[in-house]
């Protein structure tokens, strides 16, 4: 009787081991919730700065009228975007590397490469699309497009990391779709999507997978 019990426990442990090895090897689970929080904070600060910039330049943002941006302002906006991206990337990498060291998880695995590749394809296409929008002068569509393509990228990468991330992807996609019709408010949608949603998602993930 006792030997059956011991065997039973061994089998149960075997199953748990199999599950965890499958999970560990196929999904990028070092992704830290704090990465999301700090990426969100970068976007929030950047977005608020742009809002301030518009105010200073006398641009009435919350109208649906076609706004005309000067060349120098456009290049400044692009620079702000690049800085936000770099900050989010640096913070994101820092907290994720820290988490993987803490839990002794390998970082540069095939799961990581798969995740990054699946994330990068829609992002690269979206980046080129946004550059084309700027090139043709459709500035109002840039913010909604970044939300749309980012949402698609996250949904695409979902199978190689925590599957909860798909809810973030769908939310970004939804926000992007709505903001396409409220271009005057797209900065607000952008701050909501990249700032607030990332912070909220990051906090939830941080608590769940600590």
């Amino acid at each position, binding site marked *: 009787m006792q030997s059956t019990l011991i065997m039973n426990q061994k*089998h149960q442990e075997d199953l748990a*081991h*199999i*599950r965890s*090895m499958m999970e560990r*090897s196929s999904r990028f689970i070092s992704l830290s919730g704090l990465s999301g929080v700090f990426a969100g904070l970068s976007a929030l600060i950047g977005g608020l700065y742009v809002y301030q910039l518009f105010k200073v330049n006398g641009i009435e943002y919350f109208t649906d009228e076609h706004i005309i941006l000067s060349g120098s302002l456009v290049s400044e906006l692009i620079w702000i975007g690049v800085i936000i991206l770099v900050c989010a990337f640096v913070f994101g990498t820092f907290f994720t590397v820290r988490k993987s060291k803490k839990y002794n998880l390998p970082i540069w695995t095939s799961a990581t490469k798969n995740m990054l590749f699946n994330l990068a394809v829609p992002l690269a296409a979206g980046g080129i699309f946004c550059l084309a929008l700027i090139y043709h002068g459709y500035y109002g569509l840039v913010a909604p497009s970044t939300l749309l393509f980012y949402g698609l990228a996250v949904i695409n990468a979902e199978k190689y990391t925590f599957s909860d991330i798909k809810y973030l992807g769908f939310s970004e996609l939804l926000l992007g779709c709505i903001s396409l019709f409220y271009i005057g408010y797209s900065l607000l949608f952008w701050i909501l999507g990249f700032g607030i949603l990332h912070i909220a998602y990051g906090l939830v993930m941080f608590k769940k997978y600590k």
Partner: protein
Amino acid sequence: MGIIDKLNKDFESRVRLGIMSVLMVNDWVDFTEMKTLLNITDGNLASHSSALEKSEYIEVKKEFVGKKPKTSYQVTPLGRAAFKEHLSYLEKLMKS
């Protein structure tokens, strides 16, 4: 014959279970990555992987990347079927 006797003896060791689990959900996995994933020593991985290769459950590929030798593993159709069978027996045991 009871269900317990049907459990595959080749999969009794944790290391072999680990190797098979990793290969079930990935394509080629190289030696170093497998070693870090399972958190085992070189010798340990080498002996268990060659045992699995002997049973024809996994395929071992040795190649040179530059001047460094690189060993990679992939599960064979036979290994996939055997492991699935083993898993379903384990699950049945848990239910009974």
